[in-house]
């Protein structure tokens, strides 16, 4: 297959386009708000188009990085501007680019004040998220990882709900705490590598070669895992999420659920486990337990919520538990299922938060008890609502099924040999995880039942001033998301092919022991 020579340039353009967008929005800031919105939407659309080109040209037969750009940046520290696409991030980059225009279009009418600043923040956030996904240098990754905090801080704090300041400061302080410990771990890791190999480098490829004793690996994995587990979020580090989601504006919730939460799982997949394989394998039982607790506890919490945004927030905790389960299984089917589940959750949660935002724009309340019988009032809305509810539950033909099924299959495939050896914990955990699917159906269908069926009840609705059904703009963005959900559900092969080699790389990295005593060894 001929090499796509425009690739590196396109990837750089995809990454830096939002910054160009920021410049354009700042120039247009004095003009009417509509111009900022249009520029932002145009930039995001172009970014998505270019990303699609990169996705279609992606070589599924090459195992390493593609479209790489490697420029020395801070040579004294071994830091370089190293970006590239591989099976780990290609789907997530596409997801981020896809959600970009959807977020901007979703916020078209609901953001009314300081519109240029809002779009500057959304574009900066898009830049930081893309950067974190495509960075292949640890310093660069950390830079982008932290850089996501401040635009989100402002988005929630300036355009959010009543308790927005509390929620946004909690979000930043919670996430920053994990990041600070991760920074200490990063410094120590690079220093260790320099001591043993004499070379100071932050490139992932080099760091994957480090040899560290198990005790050191454990501490460093703990620091990295803390930071990523806060982001995922995994129980018990999840308490920032409900507040952040509830108080954020719709666009903020969509970005948060759609992309930001994937950062944590991506971090585990790309950095946490491959960098410290022995510690990862040693702590798999603990992490798997926490993942399953996230699945079940998140679902149970979602079952009792009365705030419609909180239901979806807790469902996110539950769904991302499947991702962790799949990653920890170390089976190809589980790892690929985890990646698919990441993308699926991004699409489904984005859709659900958009739907909740649309009804909130009309009725100004998030209390579930205030709603009823919306299927009769808003038929088009209800159809989309039902589609995304079923996708969240994991109905076959939707992407939710593909992700959950493959992840659970991976968990069982890994648990069976352990069961035959006498270790029953993985099997028990996998079985408990399956109940999460049932609980998922329970809380989502309870939500849909109360919301859509029964007596008609909606604030600000009266026969003289009936609620308006979805506008063309709203229908288009939900329609696009629906197409994506079904595409991934019915034809996942394209996505699976692209991630296959990366999943194999992940598997080999995490199963290869890297303690100094035995340099090369494979553990079952």
């Amino acid at each position, binding site marked *: 297959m001929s090499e796509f020579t425009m690739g590196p340039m396109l990837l750089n353009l995809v990454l830096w386009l939002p910054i160009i967008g920021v410049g354009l929005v700042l120039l247009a800031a004095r003009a009417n708000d509509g111009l900022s919105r249009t520029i932002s939407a145009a930039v995001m659309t172009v970014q998505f188009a270019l990303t699609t080109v990169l996705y279609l040209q992606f070589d599924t037969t090459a195992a390493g990085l593609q479209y790489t750009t490697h420029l*020395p*940046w*801070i*040579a*004294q*520290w071994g*830091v370089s501007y190293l970006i590239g696409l591989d099976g780990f991030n290609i789907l997530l980059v596409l997801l981020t680019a896809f959600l970009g225009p959807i977020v901007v279009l979703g916020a078209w009418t609901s953001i009314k004040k*300081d519109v240029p*600043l809002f779009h500057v923040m959304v574009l900066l956030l898009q830049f930081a998220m893309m950067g974190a996904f495509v960075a292949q240098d640890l310093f660069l990754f*950390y*830079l*982008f990882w*932290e*850089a996501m*905090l*401040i635009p989100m*801080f*402002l988005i929630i*704090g*300036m355009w959010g709900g009543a308790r*927005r*300041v509390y929620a946004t*400061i909690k979000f*930043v*302080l919670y996430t*920053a*705490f994990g990041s*600070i*410990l991760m*920074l*200490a771990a990063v*410094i*120590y890791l*690079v*220093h260790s590598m*320099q001591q043993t190999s004499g070379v100071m480098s932050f490139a992932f490829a080099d760091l994957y070669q480090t040899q560290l004793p198990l005790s050191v690996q454990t501490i460093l994995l703990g620091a990295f895992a803390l930071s990523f587990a806060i982001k995922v979020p995994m129980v018990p580090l999840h308490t920032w999420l409900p507040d952040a989601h509830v108080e954020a504006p719709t666009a903020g919730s969509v970005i948060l659920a759609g992309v930001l939460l994937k950062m944590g799982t991506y971090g585990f997949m790309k950095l946490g486990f491959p960098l410290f394989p022995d510690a990862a394998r040693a702590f798999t039982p603990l992490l798997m337990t926490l993942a399953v607790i996230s699945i079940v506890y998140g679902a149970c919490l979602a079952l009792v919520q009365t705030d419609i945004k909180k239901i979806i927030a807790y469902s996110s905790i539950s769904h991302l538990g499947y991702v962790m389960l799949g990653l920890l299984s170390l089976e190809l089917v589980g790892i690929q299922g985890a990646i698919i589940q990441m993308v699926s959750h991004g699409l489904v949660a984005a859709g659900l938060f958009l739907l909740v935002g649309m009804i909130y724009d009309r009725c100004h309340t998030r209390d579930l008890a205030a709603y009823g019988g919306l299927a009769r009032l808003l038929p088009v809305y209800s159809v989309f609502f039902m589609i995304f509810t079923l996708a969240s539950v994991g109905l076959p033909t939707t992407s939710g099924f593909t992700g959950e099924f493959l992840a659970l299959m991976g968990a069982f495939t890994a648990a069976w040999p352990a069961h035959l050896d006498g270790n029953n914990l993985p099997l028990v955990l996998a079985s408990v995880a399956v109940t999460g699917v049932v609980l998922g159906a329970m809380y989502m269908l309870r939500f849909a039942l109360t919301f859509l069926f029964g007596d008609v009840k909606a604030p600000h609705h009266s026969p003289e001033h009936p609620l308006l059904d979805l506008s063309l703009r709203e229908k288009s963005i939900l329609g696009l998301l629906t197409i994506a959900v079904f595409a991934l559900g019915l034809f996942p092969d394209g996505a699976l092919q692209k991630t296959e080699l990366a999943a194999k790389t992940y598997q080999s990295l995490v199963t290869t022991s890297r303690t100094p005593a035995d340099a090369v060894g494979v553990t079952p």
Partner: protein
Amino acid sequence: MNTQDALMAMLPEHLLLGGIVLVIIMEVLGRGSRSALWVALGAVIAASGAAFMLSNAQYAAAPFAGQFSVTPAILMAKGVLLALAVPVLLMSRTEFSDGEFSILLLSSLYGLCLLPSADSFLVMFLGLELLAMPVYALVLLAFRRPQSAESAFKYLVLGGAASATFLMGVSLLYGATGSMSVDAFGPALASGDVMTRTAVVLVLLALFLKAAVVPFHAWAPDTYEGASIPVTAYMATLTKGAVLLAAVRLFSGANATGPLVDLLLVLPLVSIVWGNLAAIKQQSFRRMIAYSSIAHAGYLFYAFLGNAEGRMQAVLFYVIAYSVVNLLAFAVMPQNTDDEQRDSLDALKGLYHRNPFAAVMIAVAMLSLAGLPPFPGFAAKFLIFKNVVAAGYTTYAVLGLVGSYLGIYFYLRVIQLLFMTAGEAAPTEQRAGGMARAAGVLCLVGTLVLAVLPGWVLGRI
């Protein structure tokens, strides 16, 4: 003594002296108020440029043997610090119109230039005094509020105590080693003799007091609050930087060993934690910056735990990154004839809607001081903690990082006030003056260069 060397080596200092003389003459002739600032600016820019040029030409000399010497690295440090004085002068346009500010500032800068080049304790003492004494007067000069007198007096008394402690330490060191040379300090660090150890500790404590490290920090909040904005900006950035460079010169090639390590481990860490925590409660912007600068002095002294080779680079990079954003925040602060109102954090409420440029600049400054990427403060902290880990003090590096985390909240609170809180302009509030905004733009350019091209900057220093 080679005349050529005496001229060239001290060229930056001579240019500053020329500036002082010129401003004095202009004051006497009655033309001081209009043009003093421009003369001072010219002198500082010339001195800074001279230092950069000499450094690039790899100039090194010791015109006064055993007292004063320069190397390219020292000249680069001087050039950088003098360049940072340019925004301070530009900011002062609105507060000070006479020549006294210029004369005092240039004198203080002269002392600043003496410190990194000092080869003997006498010259170092001279530098420290020349750095600090004009500032005692500068704190009082604008006299915007009655507390200024108290602030100046506190600084004077405690600065005097610092000088006395320094001299006592130097005398004991002379008694123990028989040498007034600064190079005697390095070997004295590892010495077991009680007199030498006392001497070393006294000198270090004197520097801690001058840099406002806990527990010698109590003068800083009052002094920063009582002084006017350009002077507070100068104290927070350049004075602190100069003291740190003096410390770097003192330690020169030596690694921290022996009993000194405990002092260097504990007091800066306590500074970091205490400075960050105490800033949370402050209602005055300048007091908040004072406590933040106490924390930053902690980070800077942490650099002394690292190995000697990277120390100057780490300290200088941190001083540049920290000073540039601090000056940025002070430069764009809106003016107000009522100094207390101007200083209050309430004045920042809703500033984004009144003055977006000022709000964004202050936000950038706060984020950089908090050490959040991608701002230069992050790279600077990273370098220091990297050096600390490389020297083997990993636990303390982790504690220091957690301490820096404690500081994030109050910086975020400022951003919250700027963007998320509604507020109205005080009746006497005005945009910052044109010169101050120019200073802000200069600092912004500096911030961007440091953020985007840290490798380039590190290569030069």
